[in-house]
Every structure is written in C-alpha cells, then in structure tokens.
C-alpha cells in the first residue's frame, strides 16, 4: 500500500508540469523570473485588513527592460508606471495630481523581486494542493517561517507559467493578514507599449512631490545591534522633516519577502514622543524614545521583530 501511494505520488508529480524536474526552491526562482519576463494583463483584488481594492496590472518585457502599469480601479484613479527601476506614481489629491517618483517596487505579483537567497535559510518550503484561480490551474506553495520573527506566505503559482496568481500572508494562528488574488488574467495579449502612458487630464494641475528623500552614503550616528536574522539593509534614506531644518533617518530591512522600516528621527520642540506597540492589519509598529530621538520600527512582521529591533538601537 505504501509503495502504491509512493507510485501515485510520483505519477502526480510527473503530471504536474510545475513540479516536474524541479528542485523545490527552483519554483521560487521560476516564479520570480515569470513576474519579470512575461507579458500579461489582468485584474486582481488586494485585501489588507478590511480594505479591498481592485487593481489592473499590465506588464511587458521589451528587450531586457520591464514595463509595468498598475491602475487602481476602486476609489481614486491612481496609477503606477514603472520602467526598470524607475517608478512614478500618479496620485490624485484634492484637485491636483501629485506625481511622485519612487525607487523601486515589489508589488504583487512581483513579490520575489529582491534577493531570495535568504528566504531559503529562514523559511520552509512545502507544497499544497492544486487549485483553480482566475480560470487557471495553480500549485500552492507554502513558505513557513522557521522562527517567530516573520509571517507565513502561501502562493498559488500558475502551473503553466509559475506566475503567482494568488498570495496570502498569515500569522502563526493562521489568521489571514493580507491577500491578493487575480480574478482575470491573460498572457501574451500585450504586443506594444501604447498602454504605457499615464491617463491624466492636461488641464489638471500637477504637483511634483518635493521630498528630498534619497539614499545617501552618510556616516550615521546610530546602530541597530539586533536586526532580525536574515534581514539585510536594502535601503537607507535621509529625509528632511516637514517644516524644520532637521533630518530623519529611515532604514529598510528585508529578508527577501518581509520588510521592516526603522526610523530614527529627532523629536521637535513641542512634539510628544510616542512609546509602545501597535498593530493594525498586517502591520506592527513599535516605538521608543531615546536620547531625544523617536525610534520607530514598522513592518509586516510579528510584533516581537519590530520590538527587538528598536530596543537594540543605540548611539
């Protein structure tokens, strides 16, 4: 009986193109490559806590360059256009369109856009069932954290292309914190770049967002001694604080899937520094007041991770 089960299992593997001839983690590599190299257009629903939004995404690879356009279909008609690492947001605010530049994004389904080598060390990969999503057969792949400092991720990878068609982030109690799922997707219908343009009314006013936030190679005066294992600093920014001639520091850490922001900001006169912990939706925040500075960590990670991080900041 045992051997029949094993035989059936092997036959199942052979039948499923995704798993055939795959080393397990190769699936993640393939998924990353799919999100970067495929031409597709679809609509997915994104849920973060009680908020549900429909999003239309168009993605194409032209030569070696990626072009992505994301339109929010609910609420304000905001857009994201990205070309390689250049990302521009068009956000409607009052009667103006705010144009804001960002450095990069890792928006669903391009979740694995960063370095995934650390993921292997800190997550266990396992396979779930096959399920149908957006009219296509998918394979469930689970990434379960090996410690209590990160959340669990489940991906429904398209069996033909390996593109993530659904993603769920859940905590240790298996409560769903965040999810995104395609309800419609088409491949290879994108044949030109005419769609790669913002749909803005030229009579609108445009405001170029004026923050001077940027990665600067400055000697920082503080250090964090207890960065969660597997998390590396992926960005460091110095930003001018609103209305005063002081700068705040913002470090971003990632293990390839999860992200934590650490802020070290001087407390302005008249401002009350905040301390304590806070959770909302998939996000946890921990704050501390230290030597005149507000230290705050924010991340889609368990509270323990952000709390340990801010407690370890010293200067």
């Amino acid at each position, binding site marked *: 009986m045992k051997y029949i089960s094993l035989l059936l299992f092997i036959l199942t593997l052979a039948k499923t193109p995704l798993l055939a001839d795959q080393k397990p983690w190769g699936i993640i590599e393939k998924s990353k490559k799919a999100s970067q190299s*495929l031409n597709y257009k679809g609509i997915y629903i994104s849920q973060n806590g009680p908020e549900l939004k429909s999003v239309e995404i168009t993605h194409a690879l032209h030569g070696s360059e990626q072009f992505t356009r994301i339109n929010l279909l609910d609420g304000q008609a905001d857009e994201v256009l990205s070309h390689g690492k250049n990302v521009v947001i068009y956000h409607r605010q009052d009667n103006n369109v705010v144009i804001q530049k960002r450095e990069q994004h890792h928006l669903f389904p391009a979740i694995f856009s960063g370095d995934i080598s650390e993921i292997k060390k800190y997550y266990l990969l396992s396979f779930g069932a096959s399920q149908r999503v957006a009219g296509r057969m998918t394979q469930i792949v689970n990434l379960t954290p090996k410690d209590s400092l990160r959340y669990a991720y489940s991906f429904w990878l398209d069996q033909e292309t390996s593109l993530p068609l659904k993603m769920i982030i859940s905590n240790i109690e298996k409560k769903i914190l965040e999810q995104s799922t395609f309800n419609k997707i088409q491949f290879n219908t994108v044949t030109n770049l*005419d769609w790669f*343009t913002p749909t803005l009314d*030229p009579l609108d006013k445009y405001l170029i967002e004026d923050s001077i936030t940027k990665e600067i190679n400055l000697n920082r005066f503080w250090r964090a001694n207890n960065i969660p294992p597997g998390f590396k600093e992926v960005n460091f920014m110095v930003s001018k604080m609103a209305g005063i001639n002081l700068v705040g520091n913002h470090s971003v850490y990632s293990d390839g899937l999860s992200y934590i922001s650490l802020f070290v900001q001087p407390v302005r006169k008249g401002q009350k520094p905040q301390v304590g912990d806070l959770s909302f939706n998939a996000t946890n925040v921990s704050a501390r007041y230290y030597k005149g500075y507000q230290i705050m960590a924010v991340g889609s990670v368990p509270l323990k991770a952000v709390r340990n991080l801010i407690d370890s900041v010293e200067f």
Partner: protein
Amino acid sequence: MQPLKIVQKSNPMYNTAIMEKKVIPPIQKPVNPERAIDQILVEKSQKGDKKAFSILVEKYHKKLFRLLSRMVRDQSEIEDIVQDSFIKAYRAINNFRGDSAFYTWLYRIGINTAKNHLVALGKRPKAMDEVEIEDIENFESGYEMRNHDTPESIMMNQEIVAAVSETIETLPEELKEAIALREMDGLSYEEIAEIMQCPIGTVRSRIFRAREAIAEKLKPLIEESNNRW
C-alpha cells in the same frame, strides 16, 4: 512561454505624442521686451523653476508694496499682504494665460488680498482713487518699504545713499553720464547711444561697469544690513 515581440511606438513612461495634442495653446506672443521677459519667467515657473519665480519676486515686490500701501496703513501688515499675494500668485501660476501683463495679474491678486485682509480685520480700506489697473505703471505715491526706523537703520540707509552717490561721483565721465541718463532720466539704450554718440553695445557696457563699481562699494554695507550673502 516565449514573450511576444514588442513594437515600441512611444517613449517609455509618457506618450508625449498624444499628450501634445491636448496641450493648452501657448501663451500669446507679447509685444514689448519687458512683457516678453516676464512671460518667459512665468513659463519657466510653470515648468517647476522656482528660481524663475524668485526673479519675478525680486522685480515686483517693492512695486506691489507701494501699490498696497495706498490701501493699508500698517507697514508690517503690508509686508504680510505682499507675501500672501506672491504665494497666491505662485499657487495660481498655471492659470496665468498671458492675456495681460504679469504684473497686472499680480497686482489684481494683491489688491484682492489686501481687501480680504482688511475685511477680515473689520477695517475699511483706505479710500483709493479710481485707479485703473492699466495705470499701475504710472502709480507713484505710497509708502516705501522701511527697514524699521531705528537709529541704526537710519544711519545705515544714509551710509548706503552716501556710498552710491560718492561712487558715482568718482566714476569716469562716460560711465557717470550713462548711468545717470539711464536711472535718472529713464532713457532707453538707443536714446542714450544717440545722446552719447556711441554704439548701443558701448552704452550697455558702460552702464554695466558703472553698476559693478557701485555694487562693489555697496556689498559690505548691504551685508552688514541684511546678511544678504
């Protein structure tokens, strides 16, 4: 799955060909150099160049002050209104179409701002003659901006006036004559060239050199007065 070949028809990020069709018609061509200069500074401001707007501020803030001093008595209030007016003008700069001169448009904003200010304070505006906006160029009277009349500031002002006068007196004759004809009599370069029997380029050069010499003498005094470095 092999990706299909992409035919790139437009620039990445922006389909500028489509957008150009929808662009608002360009501002009408002005008829005099001053208006042309202001026009270009406005257009640059509309493209996000705050430096261009700062030139307009430098050019017109004193004139606006003088105009508004006919409506508002208090000097510091006038300064606040002038500042508010320029901020409003900057926020509305994309609405400026060039149908009128920039300073005409600015002064309308200034007058409305002053009126609103006075109404908010429960005050009635000083009686203002029926000054047509188009006559603003000829508007002469009104307060000058004062640097808070302390003994020190009065002395500083006198030193600055003395420095300018003395420097002009020490200039070579041709430079002195050129700067006087320009600043006192308000003659154009062409008219000065005719009077001085020299090319316009020479007039330009003489006026510039005169200004340079005077500015050199003024710098230490202005620095002390305003920290303008």
